[in-house]
Structures are given as C-alpha cells and as structure tokens.
C-alpha cells in the first residue's frame, strides 16, 4: 500500500533507532499524546527497540477512554427509552455505571454501530417516527464529520436527529498534564491526526510557556521513531520548538474547511474527562442556534451523574504518572473482558494495548 509500506520499512526504522541511540546521553520521558500512537508503539514492538534512556509515557489521547461515565449512562438511558442510538464501534463495549451499550442492546435497545455519522442521518431519514441520536465521541479529528452530520440533518429538515456530544481538545489536556505536580514529561509527540484537522499553531504557546519540545508525529513505525528522534535531538540540545514530522498529512494551519465546519456548530466549553476531571475550555459544545440537535437538552438528561470505580487508577494512567502494569488490578481483576475502567476497553487505551501486546508477558 502506497504511503504505508514505506513507513513500515525495517531499514528506515533501524536507521532512526540507531540515530536515537547515538544522540541520547541521559534519561528522557517522552509522552505520545494519541492512543493510536500508543497502539502502534506496542503493536510493532517499538518500546523494546528503544534505548533504555528513552522512556515513552502514554498520554490521554484515547477518545473512548476519556469519555465520562455519565455520558455512557446517558446513551443507555436513551436506548432504554426507545431512541435509536448510533455509535462508533469501540465505544459500545465500554462499561457505564451499570452496563455497556452492547449490554443495553442485548436488553432490547436499538443500537447501531456505524463507521460514519452521516449514516446516522440516513437512519433518521428512514425512521421518521423514531428519534435518532449519534454518540459524537472523539477529539478534534472526528469533530468535522460529526458537525457535518448535524448540518446535513438541518439541510434535510430532519426533526428527529440529534447528537450526544463528548468532544474533547488536545491542547488543554496537555496543559493540564504539564500543570500536574507529579508531571514528569520532558517532550511531547503531538497527535498527527488531530493536527491534520487543527494544524499546530496552537502548540507554539505551549512549547514556549513550558519550555517543552513538541513534535507533530504520525502513526506508522517509521513516523514514530523519527518523531522520537526529533524530540531527543531537541532535548539533548536544550531547544523547545514545535516541529512537524508528519508533514505529508499536516499543514501548519490544518484543514481550513474542516475547521470552518466545526466552528459553524460548536463553541469551546468546559468538559469533563474520565479519569482526569473537568478541564476548563477543553471541549466542544453545540452553540445556541444548534441546541435542538443537542441530545442532552432535547431529552432532558443533563443531570445524570455517576461516580467512577474507586479501584481504577485511570487518572494516573491517562496523565502518564503510572504505567498500566503498575496498577494492582492490571490483569488481576481488570482485563479486556471485564474492564474496571475505560483504558482497558478500547484497543487504543494504554491498559488494553499493554494487555494485548506487551512484551513483558512474553517470557
């Protein structure tokens, strides 16, 4: 596959690994923000190929993992009230306070697993007597398509379509991590896909304020080792600028058209992050003119609140303070078929990635 095979090339990977080995002189902690990057690091066995001095910390960039428990309960409440709920695949297995969406489906709920939110609009059109809700989860990456679904529904005059919004933003989360008293992150690999939409202008201020190198990085093995090499070079030199490893997909200003679609229906507001808590101005909420499309208002379910499982250390995992295998419950009471918290559910979650692939289990 063009644009993939050349970034899975063993020679190129080895060359960057060699470069890292030669330039690193002391221990550095580098956080990859995105769950897709964590997945790729572990799946390709890259963590074990890095020199000991380079320690990767897995960031909070798994949309499924940071979606608060009460939103899952809200989606289940809708399912139990005869609403057709549409969702991306990996959201449906995440346990809510009582059950998951998949279990609510088994109890008779009409849950549809979709690949594109536009499909949900078609379902609304074909079921005029039913309410249809799309569970709009994700970072900046999925926001344009979710926004577009609302604009499509509006254009078609559909009165039975709305979205349950759980959109979060990367830069405020990075700032929350850097402000944490236990933060040990020396450099960031910024999430390539998020930057494809948003660009990377927002990171200049962060790099300057916290004196921290930020490298926009892709997801294939060669991307990751090159991104790590760029971060290590900066750390060794003592610079703290924003660099773009993923230039084949990311422009400084991002995707202007996609950003315009986001801004048409969303504004920035406070958001709760599962495992982290509320972060000011860290997500999208629908603007007033689009309130009819907001499932929380439409069905009056804003006030559903639930507490997290107290044995789950998702907060420390998502901030990179602890590794999944440092959790007492990891692989004991918590595993992918019986997850205590979200990082064990999604394949992008750090705990699940460790559970599925990790080499510390090999021998």
């Amino acid at each position, binding site marked *: 596959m063009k644009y993939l095979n050349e970034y899975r090339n063993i020679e190129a990977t080895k060359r960057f690994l060699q470069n890292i080995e030669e330039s690193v002189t002391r221990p550095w902690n580098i956080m990859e923000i995105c769950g897709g990057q964590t997945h790729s690091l572990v799946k390709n066995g890259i963590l*074990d190929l890095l020199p000991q001095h380079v320690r990767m910390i897995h960031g909070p960039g798994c949309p499924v993992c940071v979606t608060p428990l009460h939103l899952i309960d809200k989606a289940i409440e809708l399912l139990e009230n005869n609403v057709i709920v549409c969702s991306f695949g*990996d959201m449906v297995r995440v346990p809510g306070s009582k059950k998951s969406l998949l279990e609510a489906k088994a109890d008779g709920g009409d849950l549809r*697993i*979709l690949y*594109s939110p536009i499909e949900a609009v078609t379902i609304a059109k074909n079921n005029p007597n039913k309410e249809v809700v799309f569970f709009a989860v994700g970072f900046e990456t999925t926001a344009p398509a979710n926004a577009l679904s609302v604009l499509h529904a509006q254009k078609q005059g559909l009165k039975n379509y709305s979205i349950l919004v759980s959109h979060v933003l990367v830069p405020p989360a990075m700032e929350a991590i850097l402000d944490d008293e236990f933060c040990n992150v020396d450099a960031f690999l910024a999430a390539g896909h998020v930057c494809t939409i948003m660009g990377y202008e927002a990171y200049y201020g962060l790099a300057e304020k916290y004196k921290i190198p930020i490298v926009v990085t892709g997801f294939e*093995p060669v991307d990751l080792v090159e991104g790590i090499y760029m971060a290590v070079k900066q750390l060794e030199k003592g610079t703290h600028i924003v660099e773009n490893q993923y230039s084949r997909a990311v422009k400084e200003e991002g995707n202007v058209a996609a950003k315009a679609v986001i801004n048409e229906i969303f504004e920035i507001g406070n958001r709760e992050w599962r495992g982290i808590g509320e972060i000011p101005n860290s997500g999208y909420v629908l603007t007033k003119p689009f309130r009819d499309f907001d499932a929380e208002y439409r069905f009056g379910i804003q006030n559903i609140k639930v507490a997290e499982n107290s044995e789950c250390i998702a907060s420390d995992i998502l901030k990179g303070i602890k590794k999944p295998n440092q959790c007492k419950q990891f692989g004991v009471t918590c595993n992918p078929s019986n997850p205590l918290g979200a990082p064990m559910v999604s394949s992008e979650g750090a705990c699940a990635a460790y559970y599925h692939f*990790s080499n510390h*289990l*090999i021998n």
Partner: protein
Amino acid sequence: MDKRQLGFDRINLGHGSGGIMTRELLDEIIFKTFDNPYLGQKHDGSIVEIEGKMAISTDSFVVSPIFFKGGNIGELAVNGTVNDVAMCGAIPKFLSLAFIVEEGLKADEFVEIVNSVKAATDRCGVKVITGDTKVVERGKGDKIFINTTGFGEVHPKAKISAERIEIGDKIIVSGNIAQHGMAIMSQREGLEFQSSIESDTTNLNFLIENLLNNFGHKIKLFRDPTRGGLASTLSEIASDTDSGIVIHENKLPLEKQVAAACEILGLDPLYVANEGVFVAIVKEDIASQVVELLSKDVKGSNAICVGEITDNHKGKVVMQSAIGGKRIVTPLIGEHLPRIC
C-alpha cells in the same frame, strides 16, 4: 430447482406446521433438489454405512447479509461444516441440513439458497441424508439460519492431534487471510464501502485429502481459522498444548485490497474471519513440500509457511513485527469492532 415452478411467493408459518404446507415445501424444494436414496426413504432419519473411525462436526450459520459477494449462507453452511470434518483428518461423506426460516422470506431466495447448498454438496462429494425445516414468526429470526452436521471417514493415514506438536514443527497457512470477514463487513449497514473483495468460502476437503495421501502422519494438526481469525486459532493451539508459537508479520498472506480495507476500518487482519483457509502444523522436514503441493491447487496458491513451534514463551503466540520488534498475539475478546479514528 427452477424458482418459477413454485405455487407461493413467501415462506409463512404454515410451511413449518408439519402439515400439508410443510409437505409441499419439502416435496417442491427439498426432495426435488436433493434426490438421493437416503432422503428417498422419507423416514424420521437415515441409516448409512461408514467405514472405520468417524469424524463428526456441527455448526450453525447466522450470517447477515445472507447473500454476500462470493457466496451465500447456503454454500457457507456446507463448506464450513465439510471443512471442519476435513480438519479432523477425515473424508466428509454425509451432511444433515436444518433450516430455521423467518416467516416472510421470499420463496425465490429460499430456493436460491437450497440450490447453493446442493451445488456445494456436489462440489464436496457429500450427500444430504437428513434434514429439518422450521419457520419462526417475523422478528424472531434473521431471514434464515442453517445448521449442518457433517460425518466423515477418518483418513487411514491421518494422525491428527494437537498433542503431537513438537518444537521445530512448521506452521503453514493455505491462503490469503481475512477475505471472508472483510467481504461481509463491506456489506454491513453503516460500514458499507465499495470494494471487489469476495468471500473465500470454499471446500477444502480434497486439498486436505491430497496432503494426507502424500504426507500422512507427518501432518500433526489441521485447523480452520474461521471466527476470531488466525490470531484466535493460533492462541488456542498455543494455550491448549502449552507450546510457544512464533509467527512472522511479513510472511502473512494478505491481499492488497483486504489489507487496505482493514487499515481503513482499523481492524487487525489477524482477527478477521476466514472461510477458505486452513492452518497446517507439520514436521519441519516436509514443510517446503507441503507448501509446494498446496501451491499447485488454485485454493492453495498463496500457501506459505508463517512460523514455527519454539521452546520459548510456552502457551503464547509471539509475532515478529515487520520492523524487527515483537508482540504478543492474544485471542479475540468479544466482537471485533472498528475503531473511532
């Protein structure tokens, strides 16, 4: 049979009542299609002769959509069970065939499925010797479910047993993986994408028989990596036999379009279902001959040795990644779902 000869358009509850309408359905469709002396007895069951040890396997088929690129549920129900019997080192001979039909299924569709079952049994060289048809109310099924049970004679040279696996044995995959699962996925509501990926459903019994004729006891195990894909099958073998398995990512046979579809949906081809592929674990000294023999058959043209049994990491499968790293391959947990981004 010819679809136009039927006196009804849709299957209804009456066709499962056991009365005259059931008889009409059986006479018009089933008995006309599967005209053989066993069914000709029209008894509660059939009496058959079988030599030596017998291998039996049963499977239920609930695939949706029932018609997909490269086949339909009828053909799948035959190939799936015939292949399971063959994986025991047996030559499939007979098949039972039970339908659970949701009322309202178009008679034409039912006939098309029955005709596919017939064509598939002819290709496999098996006879349908007993069967059943039930009809359930609308909403209590999903158009049609099929259960088949296969009976086969164990090949005289076969000694198929996971317990015989030893360090050094080679793991051979007979063809491209993930074809069937991606063909079905491409037609599911909400996931439709345009592709020419076709299901690889096919019968593998003659290929298996040929291998047993040529290599006999040197073949230790056959497995059919259907649901859960290659990863789940290999994980089961490793854990059941407490053997270590190493596979090499760059050896996995994967067609370009299937690989691309998996990338788009965020699915790992190792976990996607196969239908026309088997795994053989064989003694090291015959591995290249097995691959060569398989390669001569169109159903085995992409056969390749993907790994081996090792004395490391007992009970686990480890994959050497294409870039020189390692990872554990675990069995599939729950349904394999596309990722958000």
